[in-house]
């Protein structure tokens, strides 16, 4: 009797405390997800009421060149930028983790650029990539390389953005650094006693230990990179020749420039599905490769 009254009381407090989230979840997550699902079957310009068109949007989408192009652009960017940034940041973390002089300085110096983010970073790199007065071509000119038009050239624009993304390796570096420092030194010692060289002990001890960190960064990095918007909005407007027409930029243009909220909702829904599938796939695949301390058997 007493027990159940207490349970009721607890339940009341529970719901009281989580009520802000509950309200938010319903109004700002659940409702939008369902609503955009509904809109995705309509034609909707927000001035007139939504018109049910069944699978019309989805059918159109598969014939829409811009849709496929935006996927190509986004995937190209993601598969190059995310893994390379990860590897670069791991390498830097390993170097900085050595007991060499100036560690603190290097750590700060490599991280510092990551604080210039968002629009500031986009503007800075638009300027760095300026074909005629920018830093990048100036440096290339020392090696006798002719000026490249970077963000103004459809062949280079996406790679310019990839290069720009490397500038943010500092974040990943810090995370790996923390991971590396978390590798128990007794394990490394043991490896050393067993006669393992630095490379082998890295492969057999360090790498498995930081693999969850790697996985975490991979997922976060991919999800982030599926949602690139700032660069496209601020500096390239998706061009030249749609070469930086990122997926989210495509959603933005369709909804807020072309007023096709129904069509854009279909795009948004596919993004949601893609994010879920990719996350799930990485988690699944990782079960085989990622080492979790204390629980690989489970």
């Amino acid at each position, binding site marked *: 009797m007493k027990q159940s009254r207490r349970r009721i009381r607890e339940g009341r407090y529970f719901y009281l405390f989580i009520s802000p989230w509950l309200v938010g979840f319903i109004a700002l997550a659940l409702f939008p997800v369902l609503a955009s699902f509904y809109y995705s079957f309509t034609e909707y310009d927000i001035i007139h009421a939504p018109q049910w068109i069944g699978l019309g949007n989805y059918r159109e989408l598969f014939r829409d060149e811009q849709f496929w192009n935006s996927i190509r652009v986004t995937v190209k960017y993601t598969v190059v930028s995310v893994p390379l940034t990860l590897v670069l940041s791991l390498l830097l973390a390993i170097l900085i983790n050595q007991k060499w002089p100036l560690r603190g300085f290097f750590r700060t110096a490599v991280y510092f650029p990551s604080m210039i983010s968002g629009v500031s970073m986009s503007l800075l790199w638009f300027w760095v990539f300026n074909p005629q007065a920018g830093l990048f071509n100036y440096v290339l000119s020392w090696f006798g390389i002719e000026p490249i038009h970077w963000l103004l050239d459809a062949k280079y624009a996406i790679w310019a953005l990839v290069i720009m993304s490397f500038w943010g390796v500092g974040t990943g570096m810090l995370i790996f650094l923390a991971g590396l420092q978390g590798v128990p030194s007794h394990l490394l010692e043991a490896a050393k006693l067993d006669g393992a060289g630095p490379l082998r002990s890295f492969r057999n001890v360090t790498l498995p230990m930081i693999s969850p960190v790697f996985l975490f960064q991979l997922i976060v990095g991919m999800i982030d990179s599926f949602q690139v918007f700032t660069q496209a909005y601020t500096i390239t407007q998706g061009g030249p020749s749609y070469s930086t027409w990122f997926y989210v930029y495509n959603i933005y243009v369709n909804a807020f420039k072309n007023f096709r909220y129904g069509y*854009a909702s279909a795009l948004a829904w596919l993004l949601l599905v893609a994010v879920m599938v990719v996350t799930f796939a990485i988690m699944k695949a990782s079960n085989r490769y990622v080492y979790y301390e204390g629980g690989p058997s489970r």
Partner: protein
Amino acid sequence: MSELTTSAAACKPRRRGPKLSSVLGVAALLIVTVIMLSPLWFMVATALKTTKEMLRFPPTVIPEQFAWGNFKELFVNSEIKFGRQYMNSVIVAVFSVFGTVLSSSLVAFGFSRYRAKGSQVLFMLVLSTMMLPYPAIMIPQFLLFTKLGLHDSLLPLILPNFVGSAYMIFLLRQFFSTLPAELYDAGRIDGSGEFRLYWSLTLPLAGPVLATVAIFTFIWSWNDLLAPVLYLDSQENFTLPIGMAAMMSSKFRLAPWNLLMAASILASIPIILMFVVAQRRFVEGIVLTGMK
């Protein structure tokens, strides 16, 4: 103790030997540092150049005369409204931090201290929304706020923070769960109500985690571009990111690279300041959230 000595002993001969690797390593890091910092240098130098000098090729490494006036121009030029937009960004960020810290900690407290029917399922729901990409839900959210007449105001940027952020709720719940139950039993015996247990017992203990939450909410809100683009109409209501993007595209016929770089520097200062002042929390936050 003995382990420590052994390892120290083992290290010594090694350190003597392959000095070359450390020299090479440091050299490599120095090169990386130069590469990483040179755009920053370019940014600062450009911000201090006159309009004439900024377009010169090859670029001058050190401005011939320091045009400090560029920074002033940002605030004086009535067409830019930089000061106003800076304030807007501060307002949005501060309220977002306040809202997120308050609501996320409330919710996290609820999840960590009480069992109730459905609490497990609800927590799974919290976790699942962590992955929910904003672009996937922005259209209905936009329509909702627009129909509420909140268009062209800062409220659609601030309000969502008052219902908690999934990631922060998760972070805080993990922390709250580590607090011993005895602590609360003692509090209850003293006659504290549940809300007091949250407010005067839990929150003070959670200072460092809350600081982490605050820092990252701030950064996230400070850099957000997509939501302001959807909601804000008039220049007076712009936040910095959208204001700066607009500054490049329209207010001037010639791209004011020097002003844009000056603006970028000023826009980055709050983040750099937080890094300097609260480096430990800052780094911890990055490690926990993976946030850029």
